[in-house]
């Protein structure tokens, strides 16, 4: 059976079908929760941002035009929320401590993969908020450079360069930590 597209769901939501919001939530909740978690490093804040994202999708669905692609429209809402979060919390620099519990609850028995994941997240926490956002938009949300440039209000070329720089910085941080 063909899956109902995001565009159709948003159009239905616009017409008052609140059930469509539930379908969108099931579709995007894991992705968005991890996106927020990897950017903020804060479990509770990520849950709040997740709820706020769907509140906003509901609130602004009336302004959604079906001729637009739904995914970039939804991602923009999530991305704008992270900007608001950092503006409010004023924690735009590196995180003092990335909440490593986001990876695994058992600290004592980590295999190589889990250990590397922890190091990756730890290094990610040392990037500034914008770098974290851009990297996660790129590899986690798999946003195109056009979409990133739209969100960040920069040129497409600059989006490409910023992704590259952030990745190189992350690589360097990992090297410095001995990986």
């Amino acid at each position, binding site marked *: 059976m063909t899956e109902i597209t995001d565009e159709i769901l948003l159009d239905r939501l616009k017409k008052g079908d609140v059930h469509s919001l539930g379908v969108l939530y099931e579709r995007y*909740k*894991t992705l968005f929760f991890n996106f927020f978690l990897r950017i903020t490093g804060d479990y509770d804040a990520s849950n709040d941002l*997740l709820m706020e994202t769907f509140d906003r999708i509901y609130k602004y669905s009336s302004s959604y035009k079906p001729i637009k692609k739904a995914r970039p429209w939804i991602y923009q809402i999530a991305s704008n929320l992270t900007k608001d979060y950092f503006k409010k919390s004023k924690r735009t620099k590196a995180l003092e401590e990335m909440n490593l519990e986001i990876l695994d609850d058992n600290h004592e028995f980590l295999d190589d993969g889990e250990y590397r994941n922890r190091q990756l997240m730890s290094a990610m926490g040392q990037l500034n908020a914008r770098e974290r956002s851009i990297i996660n938009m790129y590899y986690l949300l798999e946003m195109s450079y056009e979409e990133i440039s739209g969100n960040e209000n920069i040129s497409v*070329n600059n989006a490409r*360069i910023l992704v590259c720089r952030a990745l190189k910085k992350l690589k360097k941080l990992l090297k410095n930590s001995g990986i």
Partner: protein
Amino acid sequence: MQSIKEVKETIKKFWNMNEDQFDKEMMDYIDGVSKKAIDNEHFKEEAKELRQLLSDLKDIPLKKVETNIDEEFKRRIVKKTSKKQRSVRRIWPYFAAAASILIVFFIFIRDRSFESDYQKLKTNTDKLGFIYNLNQEQLSSNDINWLKNEIKNENNPNIKVTILDLLSNYESKLDKEFFNALEVETTPTVLMALLNIVENSNHVEYEEELLALSERKGLDITVRQKADEILSIQ
């Protein structure tokens, strides 16, 4: 391993490009947009490491959303649904009020339309026909006031008489000011129409006006007889 300064110098020296151009080439290569790597060990090594880094990032398992968060979302959905229903219930009285205002507005427009339609008429024949047809309508206070003014302003006695015949149906709504027209009116047919209304009303109130009319010099004999007749009934 080259330092960053050395790398920048190499980029500049060998490919005549700045760091931005180099990074752009790098991402195009990593994304598979550009199939051909720049022929340099540093570029190839860097690209390989960044690809590995991206692969590692993608391999980090996604954390599941906890069930209490799902529950919270469901609660919000229910709240939104009930809020929507409440807002419909809340809007309904306003909607009804707005509809009432519209009805009143249209009644008002309809009331005003008699006068405005009348003002558009140019010939006396059309005016007479229009007023005659108003016998089929239920006139409002505004209509009556407009017609009372027309009696004052109109020169054509036939139109005046037709208006008076029409107003006789609304005798109870006519005031003293209206009967004062007896004092100034001179056309016998108009005066007779006025007296017909007085006859059907509580004429005691207008005794003075009737006496003055009856004693007016040069008054048409039929009018005088009618005025005396009304006074005698008293």
